[in-house]
């Protein structure tokens, strides 16, 4: 019986080890990537923010109101003219897939920036000009990315879509973020010493 008990100890250690080794401790929920292929390579993907329901936080330096209720936005002088927002982010199928921050700064180096964090895929950092290139449109570039976005380059466009006149819902319009990203082409010859 002692032999059986000892065998059980070894078996218990092996089973516990195997469970921890092969069963993922963290298994994030995923949505299908809804990218559309771009004509000359790369992928176009659209993300949305519903301004009425997806705003986690909004604070504007020097302004009285902020979101959420109960948030006391600090009145430091250095925050004057800055804007910080955090949103839930939706894909083209209107499913929440991540979270994003949008920062706006004024002054000589005025800017608009997005950091989009999609837990199962990675994060990207987009820089946009302060001045809109069309009504509610800003076209910028991808500055950096992590994991799935780490090797990509391309453009990021922000567009404000106003609420339709026929829309009787609580919606306050949408922000659309369109990325057009491509993996850099790496021209590689055959490895040295290898016949062509």
């Amino acid at each position: 019986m002692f032999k059986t008990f000892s065998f059980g100890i070894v078996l218990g250690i092996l089973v516990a080890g195997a469970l921890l080794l092969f069963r993922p401790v963290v298994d994030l929920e995923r949505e299908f990537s809804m990218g559309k292929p771009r004509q000359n390579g790369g992928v176009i993907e659209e993300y949305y923010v519903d301004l009425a329901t997806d705003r986690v936080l909004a604070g504007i330096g020097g302004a009285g109101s902020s979101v959420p209720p109960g948030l006391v936005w600090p009145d430091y002088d250095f925050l004057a003219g800055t804007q910080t927002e955090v949103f839930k982010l939706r894909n083209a199928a209107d499913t929440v897939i991540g979270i994003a921050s949008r920062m706006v700064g004024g002054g000589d180096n005025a800017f608009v920036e997005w950091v989009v964090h999609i837990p199962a895929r990675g994060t990207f950092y987009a820089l946009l000009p302060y001045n809109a290139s069309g009504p509610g449109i800003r076209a910028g570039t991808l500055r950096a990315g992590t994991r799935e976005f780490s090797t990509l380059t391309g453009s990021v466009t922000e567009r404000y879509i106003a609420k339709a006149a026929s829309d009787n819902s609580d919606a306050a319009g949408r922000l659309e973020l369109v990325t057009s990203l491509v993996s850099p082409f790496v021209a590689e010859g055959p490895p040295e010493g290898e016949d062509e």
Partner: protein
Amino acid sequence: MKYAISLILGMLTGATLFILLLYFNPFASPSSISPLAMSRGQVLNFSFPAVSRETLAFTNDGESVPLPHPEKVLQLWERTVKETSAAIVILADSRGEPVGIAVKFQSDSEDTHILNAQYLVNSVWHIHLPGRGTMLLDQVENHWSYMRDIVIQAHKSSGDNWRGNWTEVMTVGPNAIGTGRVTGGSGEFAGMEQEGVESLFATAYSVAAGPVAMFGNLVITLPDTDEELEEEEEEKPESEPGE
């Protein structure tokens, strides 16, 4: 029958021994020395509150600790963001003066390997220092020691809390020397590619509310100025002929 009971008892003992070995793993000692401690260049040093009620806002799925703040903040309950939290904080410089605002997103990482004493978290900081510029710090954090030394200790305590002095460098990657990647955005940081490290200092934790007394520290290296690069060049020994 008695053999089956022996086997089951043996397996339970084995599994318990295995878990104890993981818990007391001597090779998983916390790292309290920043990999940037020996950095010769200029660094930016920020402190920030790591207790949810001391942040401007903090949100998560609403069911786990720390508790969201303020109470009516939108919670991340959707299944794709359930393992994610967001904190918005004011950054203070080394003299304690508020100098910037930052948003931190963090999500549990699928690269987590408990066997290697790793409870990994992917996190990013979107940092805005008004008048200076913006940057992104992306990093991989290891929360294993935090869980083992604080959270589990608090659960074991009869008062459901923990008190002590705990310091740890949370950043373990993605750079090879255990630092995070810093990417400059606008202003004086435009085009910058540097490194950063986050540390946490905790003295009190409660099972019900999460961290009670805890603050964090961010260290970000700055690029060498032209003068410093020249000095380094001068300090380099001249190479021998033929080398």
